[in-house]
């Protein structure tokens, strides 16, 4: 009989040989758990992420922007669906995954605990939040778990469209009336640091990084991805005449990267622990939607079972 230790060695050998792990393959329980945590967190982030953006659909400034925003939020719901399905391939049902969110056992990206106060925030989310998410997601198209990698390929295509439309909103505002430019700068000021926090704690502090890298669930560390994002985004801000709110930001010729100021980790942990500006509202919105939808789901189930019975009787 093959020992678990041998299976683990075989498993690691497959990972090292860049073979994708598929749902029916043997995998260490910790690998499965790590993935369930990450994929479900990702799914929840898509669904909770609909709320701050959905907040501006009815107030979008023109019909074209309204259509784009509706389509974007619809894409996010779709991403949530693929990712819940990817979770199901790991043996957890959508119901139990959602229960974990609603009971607070599972997390979602903290960025969605910040409020969208002005229209420019919709631009900032597309540009910065989706821009940061893409850094992570492009890496995940090469993740070792097949269904997750494939879901990511599809998601990345749509996310890069989201990022471009967000940047375009900011560019138009920056060229607009002084109040519009101020609105764009204010949004950048408020979303910059939370966007950097999206990459998670420093590598030295990150609980899951080492294991995730060994199993090639992750392929680049939090700090590496964060640096990539900063290097790219600072230049984009310059192009449209906005200022990144970091006095320590400076090009470092020697490193070939921007040096930047320290992130306020107290704020980061505070929001993770549930004390961000909108944690309470976001969870309440999800719980209310779930509770108010219960009779709808029950009706659908009851009707489906009546139909099945009728068919069997016929």
């Amino acid at each position: 009989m093959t020992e678990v230790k041998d299976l683990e060695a075989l498993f690691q050998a497959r990972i090292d040989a860049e073979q994708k792990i598929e749902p029916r393959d043997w995998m260490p329980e910790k690998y499965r758990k790590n993935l369930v945590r990450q994929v479900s967190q990702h799914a929840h982030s898509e669904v909770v992420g609909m709320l701050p953006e959905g907040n501006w659909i009815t107030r979008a400034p023109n019909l074209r922007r309204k259509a784009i925003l509706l389509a974007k939020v619809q894409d996010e719901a779709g991403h949530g669906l693929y990712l819940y399905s990817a979770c199901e391939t790991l043996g957890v049902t959508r119901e139990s995954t959602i229960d974990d969110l609603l009971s607070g056992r599972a997390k979602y990206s903290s960025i969605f605990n910040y409020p969208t106060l002005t229209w420019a925030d919709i631009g900032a989310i597309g540009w910065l939040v989706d821009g940061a998410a893409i850094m992570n997601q492009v890496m995940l198209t090469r993740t070792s778990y097949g269904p997750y990698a494939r879901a990511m390929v599809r998601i990345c295509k749509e996310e890069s469209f989201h990022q471009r439309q967000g940047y375009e909103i900011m560019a138009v505002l920056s060229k607009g009336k002084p109040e519009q430019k101020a609105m764009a700068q204010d949004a950048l000021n408020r979303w910059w640091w939370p966007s950097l926090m999206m990459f998670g704690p420093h590598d030295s502090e990150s609980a899951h990084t080492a294991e995730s890298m060994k199993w090639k669930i992750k392929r680049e560390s939090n700090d590496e991805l964060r640096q990539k994002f900063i290097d790219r985004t600072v230049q984009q801000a310059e192009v449209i005449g906005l200022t990144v709110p970091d006095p320590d930001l400076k090009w470092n010729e020697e490193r070939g990267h921007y040096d930047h100021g320290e992130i306020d980790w107290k704020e980061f942990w505070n929001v993770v622990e549930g004390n961000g500006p909108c944690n309470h509202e976001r969870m309440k919105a999800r719980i209310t939607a779930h509770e108010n939808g219960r009779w709808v789901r029950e009706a659908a189930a009851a009707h489906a079972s009546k139909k099945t019975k009728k068919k069997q009787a016929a």
Partner: protein
Amino acid sequence: MNDTRFTYTLRLADDLLVLSHRLSEWCGHGPVLEEDIALTNRALDHLGEARNLLQYAGQVEGQGRSDDDLAFLRNERQYRNVKLVEQPNGDYAHTIARSFLFDAYHLPLMQALLKSKDEQLVAIAGKAVKEATYHLRHSSEWMVRFGDGTDESHQRAQTALDDLWTFTGELFVEDDVQKELEKAGIAPASGPIKAAFDSTVNEVLKEATLKRPEDGFMAEGGRDGRHTEHLGYILAEMQYLQRAYPGAEW
């Protein structure tokens, strides 16, 4: 004639724009993720069709107003939608019943518009028919699930129908605008559309084991810009940025 054609096109457009607004309020709050997607999809379809119609209305009017001008810079009294579509979302049964009653009217209307003498309306209807077919299927299926689901869902669906029925008369109103364009072969006659509506409603409600409400008092006025109090709030929200920053580009 151009005036009436402008008014008629606005009526078609405003129904869709206002319904799209209402449906988009659900975004992120749907009873199940698939329905969040379906409602957003409908909101997008209605919005797309409204844009086509508003652009055309602007052309008919000939004063250089764009679709955005017409959507964001008209007041409550200048909107021409039926009162049905501005009614609040309520519970999911109300949202579905509102769409069902609208879809049962909108699909035969779009089909009939394919024979209009106005080529632009024919082109717009041509695009809308496919979407409207799907919309009616979606709302009909849910009416059946609710009616023939649990006691609670049956009760909620019946209440929604009873609440909204008074707003269905206005869908088939025969006023001067309608009559003039009917005569000119531009607007389809209301009679056959009402017949198609009746037949869809009767068939679906029968399968859903729901009771068709009695035709009592029918609310009117939306087509002439006399709305319920709800529309003012919809427009205040929708038009806020255009009103707060006049002339700004977005």
